[in-house]
């Protein structure tokens, strides 16, 4: 199993969600987060007082998928979240040791 974490532009959420559901992904967790990569932040000025806002609002999706589906999901994420401009976000992939469905204690990929 793979965990796929994607940090994306908030306004891309609906498009990404639709694309993932379109390829049959039926579970995800969405978090509102703040952060920045190379995009850095922007400057705001209030009566001459400057503030650098370097943490920008982002949306983070977390999905755990069977190994066989990981590539497809990642390609779908890239396709639907990309604008081609700086600030589009990143995808991180990691191994998952175990998954358990709380309702009936299904384990492994059956629990996904």
């Amino acid at each position, binding site marked *: 199993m793979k965990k796929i974490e994607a940090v994306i532009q908030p306004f891309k959420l609906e498009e990404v969600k639709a694309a993932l559901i379109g390829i049959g992904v039926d579970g995800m967790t969405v978090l509102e987060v703040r952060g920045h990569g190379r995009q850095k932040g922007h400057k*705001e*000025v*209030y*009566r*001459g*007082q400057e*503030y650098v*806002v370097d943490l920008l609002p982002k949306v983070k999706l977390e999905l755990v998928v069977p190994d066989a589906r990981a590539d497809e999901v990642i390609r779908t994420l890239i396709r639907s979240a990309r604008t081609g401009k700086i600030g589009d976000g990143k995808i991180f992939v990691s191994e998952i040791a175990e998954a358990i469905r709380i309702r009936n204690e299904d384990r492994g990929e059956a629990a996904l």
Partner: protein
Amino acid sequence: MRKISGFLLLAAAAANGQDAEKLAALEKAVQDAQAAADNAWLMTSTALVLMMTGPGLALFYGGLVRKKNVLGTMMHSFILMAVATVLWGVVGYSLAFGGEGRFIGDLSYAFMNAVGMERQGAIPHLTFMAFQLMFAIITPALISGAFAERIRFSAMLLFTVLWSLVVYYPLAHMVWGTGGLLNAFSDGAIPCYDFAGGTVVHISSGVSALVCAIYLGKRHGYPSETMKPHNLVLSVVGACLLWVGWFGFNAGSALASSGQAASAFVATQFGAAAATLGWMLAEWLRNGKPSVLGAITGAVAGLVAITPASGFVRPMPALVIGFAAGLICYYMVAVVKQRLGYDDSLDAFGVHGVGGTVGAILTGVFATRLVADPEGSRAFGLVDGNAMQVAYQFVGSLIAWVLAAVGTFVILKVCDLLVGVRVEAEHEILGLDLSMHGEEGYNLES
């Protein structure tokens, strides 16, 4: 009015053949009609000026602070609507407008003694008293911009009571009271023109604000931590309410529903408009972006600066005064304050102290009999050929500066000894809403 009654006199004489009784009745009816109009406008103005404090100033300031202090900040304005009123009724009005002292009034009107429905000038004495009360409410409320987000509520109450007694009532008497040192219309030794409170309201509150800001010190984390206004939408609404209310403040200060009131009305609008553009232009050139906060702050600066001049200047000088105030106040707030490093949280000094002083001096330049007293012969300001007036305005402002600065410093010392002015650090970090008032402004999840 004189013309109308003259016409009626002739008409009546022709129709009724010198019926003296009827003529007298007509004269009185005309006078009563004028008095009713004056009273209606002044009571409307009184309500407008109260609207400037709450909701106007409460929203303007409330939006500028961080959200943990929004209620505490709005309370500073709101509670003065109660505190300043009671104090005014008991002794304040009397100390400001009773008697004929040079520096302060007397106790002849204490507890509203001899303040009734009979006319004082064009309007009932009670109307005059209530109108002036609204100025005594908003003036200390303006100071709260300087100590926002870090003053103890009990200290704020004590401070404003003492400040009213020591600074506001004496200054109001000196400028507007019979026999006052600075009252140009009552043989004051230093005759100053302050139509609606540039000196009495704005210099006094602005300079006191500066002393408060320095005395209390910077807010915890200023300027390294982000202290962005938490809701500029509230501030925009507040600034608009201030702008509208200011028609009562300035045009009401004609104390009659007169041509001079109309002139002050127009000057107010023109001053605010020019200052909005002045501030926006300066900011746009310097920062590359015209901010909304800049535009509304510019409007307030213009309203402040036109206040002393409003009933004395023609419309084009009002544009000049406003534009100058927009530029100068912007420079003070955005450049000088940053350089000096004091934390006047909401810029009560930069807008009211500086704008009030700019307005006071320029009143000496542009005040003219054409507006102030068209039928009289007095030379008002520099444009009337009275260059000395600029010096008088300067000295008058200086006296207000000194009184406000010294008075405020002494009062702060007293408050500090009695209750402690500044909240504990952990209360400040928690926010005044929770630590002083036990509630929060936004409970959106509930």
